[in-house]
């Protein structure tokens, strides 16, 4: 057995024969041609033919895989119309070189331009330049379009796959992907995710012809690729695979289903997200909305404050992605424990109890106002709810509401389009839970942040592993605070959700329903699991 390690871009396990996909080696020589004008015509004719092929491929792909995946062929066609690309190739021909060499030169030159960029998406475009160049070269050499054909489903192993190759694959014939090159943003990775097939990229394997037809295992959980595994290992992987398939099927059946118990009690199940891309996963998991969008990602890992425009773009993108489903965005929740030097926060003895979250926002209002302006502008594009963290008093909420009013008025005065938003607070301090009857009069909803509520209620630092033994997330004190908060919310006529890790704890699902929690917000990967738990209840 040979074992290789790669970067998993899609979890899952595939077991089957290897289909080794190698491109036909095209021999490029820098031979000169006597008739420059004829070669020039041959080149432009090949480009026209390539564009015609791409138009056809676009139409086909539009039918088979939809506009999102078909768009790549439209882009390829536009790249083949690029003046610089065409002039570079034509220039080589003017210098007397043959057309194949000229296209190869132009392709290499522009692919390198993209490969050197610092943006991963743009680096991925180098593959597109190589793809269009190969297409023109194949036409010049009268070679057939490259195809992958196999009678049985196979694991596709290749150096890298171009978009024109991946989009034409017969999806019923593929079990998984392994590529030597590629990245999390490569076409192979995107396709694997859309097909829900295990895939590894960056696998350091030399593609000898002997691989073709050998039995292999692609394990997207472990990031390993096994060629000709021993009987014992193979049967272990088979068990693991069957388990994965069974889990997947069971969860898949829950998509589109209601979160309802056998006796007819309903609850909303939303997703927690940390950035714009996560919204995609939330949709794929069939979440009913976003129950907690942590806005910190906008502030972390950078040197200056994010601008209003930048924030607006991010919030709007998520609201549009969720197509009218509710999106609860939490305002800045940062303290001295996060490394954001440009905030100029002084080191603290006890950052969990320190200058953080809403305390910073109400002290340095300019930071808060920028975020609120972006939020209210984004609210015009979907169903937004705004939630404030670390609240301990009704006065804080009153001050927040004054600032919110001022921001809204200013935006309206400036002629900006402004949307509506529900306003809510996190219940994550024991103080807020205890006076939740008073706080409920001030807001539209509560969201119970069980992680902080646990650590503040039990006085247990959740970062300290030595205390894991006494960090009892089912502690009666905590559960009483939650129950009290839910009761007070309902008496005031507002809704209440749970957005901490406890929301996904299926041992408590029955209890949450019993006390009347309206919404559970959990990691996207846990949405269907919790739905299953709800539906299994009497």
């Amino acid at each position, binding site marked *: 057995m040979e074992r290789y390690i790669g970067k998993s871009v899609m979890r899952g396990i595939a077991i089957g024969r290897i289909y080794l996909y190698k491109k036909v080696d095209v021999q490029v020589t820098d031979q000169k041609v006597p008739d420059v004008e004829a070669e020039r015509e041959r080149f432009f004719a090949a480009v026209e033919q390539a564009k015609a092929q791409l138009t056809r491929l676009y139409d086909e792909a539009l039918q088979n895989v939809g506009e999102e995946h078909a768009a790549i062929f439209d882009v390829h066609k*536009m790249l083949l*119309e690029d003046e610089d690309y065409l002039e570079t190739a034509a220039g080589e021909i003017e210098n007397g070189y043959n057309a194949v060499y000229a296209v190869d030169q132009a392709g290499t030159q522009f692919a390198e331009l993209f490969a050197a960029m610092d943006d991963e998406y*743009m680096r991925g475009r180098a593959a597109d330049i190589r793809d269009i160049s190969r297409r023109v070269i194949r036409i010049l050499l009268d070679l057939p379009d490259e195809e992958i054909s196999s009678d049985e489903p196979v694991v596709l192993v290749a150096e890298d796959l171009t978009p024109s190759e991946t989009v034409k694959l017969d999806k019923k014939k593929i079990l998984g992907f392994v590529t030597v090159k590629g990245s999390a943003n490569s076409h192979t990775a995107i396709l694997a995710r859309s097909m829900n097939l295990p895939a590894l990229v960056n696998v350091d394997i030399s593609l000898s012809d002997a691989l073709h037809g050998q039995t292999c295992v692609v394990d997207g959980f472990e990031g390993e690729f096994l060629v000709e595994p021993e009987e014992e290992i193979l049967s272990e992987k088979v068990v693991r695979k069957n388990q994965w398939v069974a889990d997947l099927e069971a969860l898949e059946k829950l998509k589109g289903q209601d979160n309802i118990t056998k006796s007819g009690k309903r609850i909303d199940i939303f997703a927690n997200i940390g950035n714009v891309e996560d919204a995609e996963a939330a949709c794929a998991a069939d979440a009913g909305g976003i129950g907690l969008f942590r806005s910190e990602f906008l502030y972390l890992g950078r040197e200056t404050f994010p601008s209003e425009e930048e924030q607006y773009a991010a919030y709007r993108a998520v609201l549009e992605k969720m197509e009218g489903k509710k999106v609860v965005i939490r305002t800045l929740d940062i303290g001295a424990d996060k490394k954001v030097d440009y905030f100029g926060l002084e080191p603290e003895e006890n950052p969990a109890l320190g200058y953080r979250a809403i305390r910073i926002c109400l002290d340095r209002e300019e930071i808060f106002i920028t975020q609120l302006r972006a939020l209210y502008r984004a609210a015009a594009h979907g169903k937004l709810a705004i939630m404030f963290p670390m609240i301990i008093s009704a006065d804080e909420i009153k001050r927040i509401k004054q600032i919110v009013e001022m921001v809204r008025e200013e935006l309206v005065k400036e002629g900006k389009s402004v949307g509506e938003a529900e306003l809510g607070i996190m219940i994550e301090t024991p103080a807020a839970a205890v006076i939740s009857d008073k706080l409920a009069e001030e807001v539209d909803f509560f969201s119970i942040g069980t992680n902080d509520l646990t650590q503040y209620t039990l006085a247990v630092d959740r970062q300290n592993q030595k205390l894991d033994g006494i960090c009892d997330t089912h502690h009666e004190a905590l559960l009483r605070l939650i129950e009290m908060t839910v009761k007070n919310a309902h008496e005031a006529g507002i809704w209440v959700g749970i957005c901490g890790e406890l929301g996904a704890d299926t041992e408590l699902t029955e209890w949450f329903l019993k006390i009347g929690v309206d919404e559970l917000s959990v990691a996207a990967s846990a949405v269907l699991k919790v739905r299953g738990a709800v539906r299994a209840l009497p």
Partner: protein
Amino acid sequence: MRDFTYVIKDPVGLHARPAGLLVKKAGEFTSRITIESGGKSAEAKKLIMLMGLGIKQGAEVVCRIEGEDEDAAHEALAKFFEENL
């Protein structure tokens, strides 16, 4: 000469598809149209160079238009950015 400034809202930035559409839009006019961002500039009618600017979300771009139909181009391009980027 006409110009305008715009901040990119699209989360992926000026990626291939909208860049291609921008090239098509710019091609409708005879004016010379350049896009500047981060100290680099490219002609709006050249797709590869335009993508080569690596314009990301939040980046400020300046679009300069010079030529006979600059007024019409200015209006059309400002609208294009607003709607697509």
